[in-house]
């Protein structure tokens, strides 16, 4: 009969299709869908997750959009994404089957160097399905529930809070936005849902990392954060420790709505293994006097395309994007930001710091648009790039469209390598060349690193130090 997965799928094939709805003869436990993407597979995903009818229709419609849309012709080469050969849905328990020995040695070695505790390592490796922090997790949940904050995984949210999800899902990033948002909308699984009631300030950063009852990082995570007026929340995802992933396409969508006077900070640190295409659509709508802060750290993956966006839709709304990219040999990190000023007196700030080493390539790609009538708006972009080796590459593709004379936009960028004088200065005080390079690189990313929660910042610095030791010489 073959594996359980195959058997389960065989049952599905023989089942009846009634009224156009997918309804199997008996319940089958599917570990993962077969390779490739088709309408049937989208139906299976909706069925396995026991989703309401409206979500199933959203998925099917998005699947049609995905088939029609073409991949972007600009940016890094993603022609080798083999859509027909991917598994689009893998149950989280499937990942437990991964063995420690399957994980590449360099990743295990990195864990030693940056000091990840042993228990965490197993979790990150997928050897352990859940991180053992049950007591911590439950006490956090109790505190949150008292204030009315909802923090759960997206799968649960669709079932338990359909009225909120239905109202906001796909409103910030519609399926038709681009080919990968269409794909995500069709096959999404996992991700977080955060709802913060008016006036509530969540003091503790919410971390997906410590969610126990939900699948950890999925290939097609869908995250939705709603901050009601006057609220504050800081959401953190990812980790500096390298994540090994057997699936090579990660395409997440993050939608954030910041209502009047609210503030949301979304911190990501991504360190996927080099076989991963990391193609993400992240966007926020910011209303009157709201503040949105994206802190985006990109260290891993083979190809990343990610442009956190702020759409400033209310007077005096403010958006900030702090983006860091470190690309080594075999990596292309195409990151940046978009700021669309849709109201007067709005302001945006974009800071991008990239490091290219070996033959790695980083690109900053950004847009600032101020339409007519958005008087009093201001934007400033600064992107700096550091090249550490002769064959490293860095590009900058900014774009400023200003249709309102009573607005101020500024942009500055600089690219270069570590100055000989700087190295000499540090070496003459007893540091080795490697230590000097690490120190200068740490100083280079400091404006972004200092915005990370402490444990991330510490790990990031250690990780960069380790990466730099390979860059020198």
């Amino acid at each position, binding site marked *: 009969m073959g594996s359980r997965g195959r058997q389960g799928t065989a049952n599905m094939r023989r089942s009846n299709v009634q009224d156009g709805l997918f309804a199997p003869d008996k319940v089958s436990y599917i570990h993962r869908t077969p390779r490739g993407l088709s309408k049937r597979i989208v139906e299976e995903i909706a069925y396995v997750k026991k989703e309401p009818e409206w979500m199933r229709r959203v998925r099917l419609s998005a699947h049609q959009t995905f088939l029609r849309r073409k991949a972007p012709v600009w940016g890094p080469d993603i022609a080798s994404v083999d859509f027909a050969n991917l598994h689009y849905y893998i149950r989280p328990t499937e990942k437990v089957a991964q063995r420690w020995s399957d994980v590449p040695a360099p990743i295990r070695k990195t864990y030693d160097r940056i000091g990840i505790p042993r228990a965490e390592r197993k979790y990150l490796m997928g050897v352990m399905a859940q991180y053992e922090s049950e007591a911590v997790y439950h006490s956090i949940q109790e505190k949150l529930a008292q204030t009315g904050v909802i923090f759960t995984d997206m799968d649960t949210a669709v079932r338990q809070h359909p009225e909120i999800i239905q109202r906001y899902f796909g409103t910030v990033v519609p399926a038709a936005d681009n080919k990968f948002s269409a794909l995500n909308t069709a096959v999404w699984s996992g991700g977080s849902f955060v709802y913060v009631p008016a006036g509530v300030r969540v003091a503790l950063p919410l971390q997906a990392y410590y969610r126990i009852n939900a699948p950890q990082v999925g290939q097609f995570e869908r995250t939705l954060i709603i901050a009601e007026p006057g609220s504050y929340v800081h959401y953190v995802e990812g980790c500096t420790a390298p994540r090994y992933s057997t699936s090579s396409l990660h395409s997440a969508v993050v939608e954030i709505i910041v209502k009047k006077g609210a503030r949301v900070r979304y911190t990501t640190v991504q360190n996927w293994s080099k076989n991963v295409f990391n193609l993400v659509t992240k966007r926020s709508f910011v209303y009157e006097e709201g503040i949105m802060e994206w802190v985006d750290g990109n260290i891993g993956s083979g190809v990343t395309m990610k442009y956190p966006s702020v759409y400033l839709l209310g007077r005096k709304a403010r958006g900030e994007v702090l983006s860091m990219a470190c690309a080594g040999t075999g990596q292309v990190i195409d990151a940046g930001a978009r700021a669309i000023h849709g109201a007067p007196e709005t302001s945006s700030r974009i800071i991008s710091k990239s490091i290219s080493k070996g033959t790695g390539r980083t690109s900053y790609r950004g847009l600032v648009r101020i339409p*007519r009538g958005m008087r009093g708006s201001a934007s400033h972009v600064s992107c700096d*790039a550091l*090249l*550490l*080796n*002769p*064959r*490293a*590459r*860095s*590009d*900058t*593709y*900014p*774009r*400023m*469209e*200003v*249709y*309102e*004379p*009573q*607005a*101020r*936009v*500024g*942009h*500055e*960028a*600089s*690219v*270069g*390598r570590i100055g000989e004088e700087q190295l000499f200065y540090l070496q003459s005080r007893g540091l080795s060349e490697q230590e000097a390079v690490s120190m200068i690189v740490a100083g280079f990313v400091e404006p972004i690193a200092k915005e990370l929660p402490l444990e991330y910042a510490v790990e990031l610095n250690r990780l960069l130090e380790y990466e730099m030791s390979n860059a020198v010489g």
Partner: protein
Amino acid sequence: MKIINVATSKKITLRASARINVRGGVAATVFWQPVAASSLTVMLGKRSRIYLSCVVQPQVRVSANLVIHLNQPGAEAVVVGAFHGTRADRHQVRVVLHHNVRNTKSDILLRGVYEGNSSGTMAGLIVIEPDAHRTVAHYSGHALLFDHASALSVPTLEIQTDDVRASHSATIRTVSGEELFYLSSRGITPGTARRMIAGSFLTAHIGSRS
């Protein structure tokens, strides 16, 4: 396409499209006033230099494309641009620098004033090839807007080696209320103040790098 071979240091005035080859060791000064759709290509020889002023007067439509190839070591290019748009003008200026070998320098300083319903696009591309060690490249594009004008600024960099210093800056703004108040408090009418500020803004770099 008109081809101009510059063998001795001299000044050239141009209106339309052309191709300029600057011989090694020569310093050329070019004054280019593009009209309609014009393109200018410059090839620089060893240790040669070009100082190029590009001036766009108010006219309905201009699309100017300037490409400079620094093919030999020691080549230097300085481009100073002053663009003025009024009424319903649509201006597009693109400056591309190719740094192909070591020890070359470029400095691009563009300024545009757009009034009425005009719009200006200032695009720059600096390409530094893998063999172009010790390149120093700078691009700046600043726009001053009045009335209902608009501007699009696209300064791009493509850098393929590490031993370089490349930077760019771009701003789009209008004259602030404080600046106008300062001048009017000294008895200068708003119309005169606007012309003074726009004039000094446009000519800020003229003659500064020659």
